[in-house]
């Protein structure tokens, strides 16, 4: 039982590391949102492993962190949805999607839209 918690806890640590790397290296904003989700998954699984270690009284895990995880997953979805909506609006406005520091070029006759 403790083994599963330790194994997936270490797996979660690796997920956070991978997500941090992707967040820095991938230039596409959508990839950064995806990386943010991978970091989030790592944090959640780590928290879940801690919850599993707190198993007692026949329950598979400590119910308090598990309930907080449900809240956390829904909030992470909301944040990703808002980020994606902002990104799509940026694309509609400028015809490009970039986080480069030089300002995006002016839209040429509503580029990307029919």
């Amino acid at each position: 039982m403790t083994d599963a918690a330790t194994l997936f806890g270490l797996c979660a640590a690796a997920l956070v590391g991978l997500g941090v790397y992707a967040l820095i290296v991938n230039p596409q904003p959508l990839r950064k949102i995806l990386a943010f989700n991978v970091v989030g998954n790592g944090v959640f699984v780590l928290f879940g492993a801690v919850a599993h270690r707190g198993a007692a009284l026949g329950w598979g895990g400590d119910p308090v962190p598990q309930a907080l995880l449900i809240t956390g997953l829904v909030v992470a979805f909301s944040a990703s949805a808002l980020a994606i909506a902002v990104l799509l609006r940026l694309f509609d406005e400028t015809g490009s999607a970039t986080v480069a520091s030089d300002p995006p070029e002016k839209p040429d006759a509503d580029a990307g839209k029919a």
Partner: protein
Amino acid sequence: MIEAFNGALALLVLVLAIWTVVARDTFAAAVGFVAYGMLLTLVWVQLQGIDVALIEGAIGGGLTGAMLIAAASRLRPTEAAARAERPGLPTRLAAALVAACVAAALAVAVLALPDPAPTLARETADNMAATGVGNPITGVLLAFRAMDTLLEAIVVLFAMIGVWALAPDRAWGGRPGRLHRADPDGILAYLARVLPPIGIVVAVYIFWIGADLPGGKFQGASILAAMWLLAAMAGLADAPPVSRTSLRVALIAGPVVFIAIGAAGVWTAGAFLAYPDGLAKPLIKVIEWALLPSLALTLALILAGAPERPAR
């Protein structure tokens, strides 16, 4: 045997996570993310968090994945330009070093966790009788930490308002953009007719048993939203104009009922979100019934995106 399964599962999750990081194409990375989300669901089962597994499968992998795939296909024209911005080797090496340090620090923390682990399971069990529900997670969500759940429902609503606020002026109050142009005789249209009745039954069942077994309103609401998304993608359903009054009433009904019951607790039980003795279970049920349709609608409209077609 189970150790071998867990080891293989952890390895597969890591390989798919690496795929989402290194895949050249954003679309391919998003597809990999969905498969990775489904495998994470199995991780949650192995960590004995069945309620979390349900929400991960429905929201973490399912709805987030659908949203990422839709965005990736729309942003495809920007792919080539973005690839040119890929940082050079020194930056990538520095990023790898930072990421490795973060992962190593977390791994050390995991190995140094206290033994025996602290747990609130005993306190929860001692007080479960007062809530009248059998699923400890529902008890925590709607009684002991009801404030979190209330704020969560409001955060989801605010995210939807934020998405709406991104509408261009000409489309304000109109309908969200069409999700897809599907062949009306294609397999998608067929599945969108066959699957929603089954999905609705599953969603209501998961919602209904949430009081005593793993499940609940968030899981049920995300399955309902997914069923609507399926019908919308097949062109069988259309999103309503966001200025419709009945829609707005339905969206806020759940949180309003929750806040009203919470405020009533100030007089009847002495604290905001406290339930009077003996009435906890019926009140929890009323809150869950009120939240389910509001949450399902909110999640579906978040997926539909900002209004793009002017109201006519």
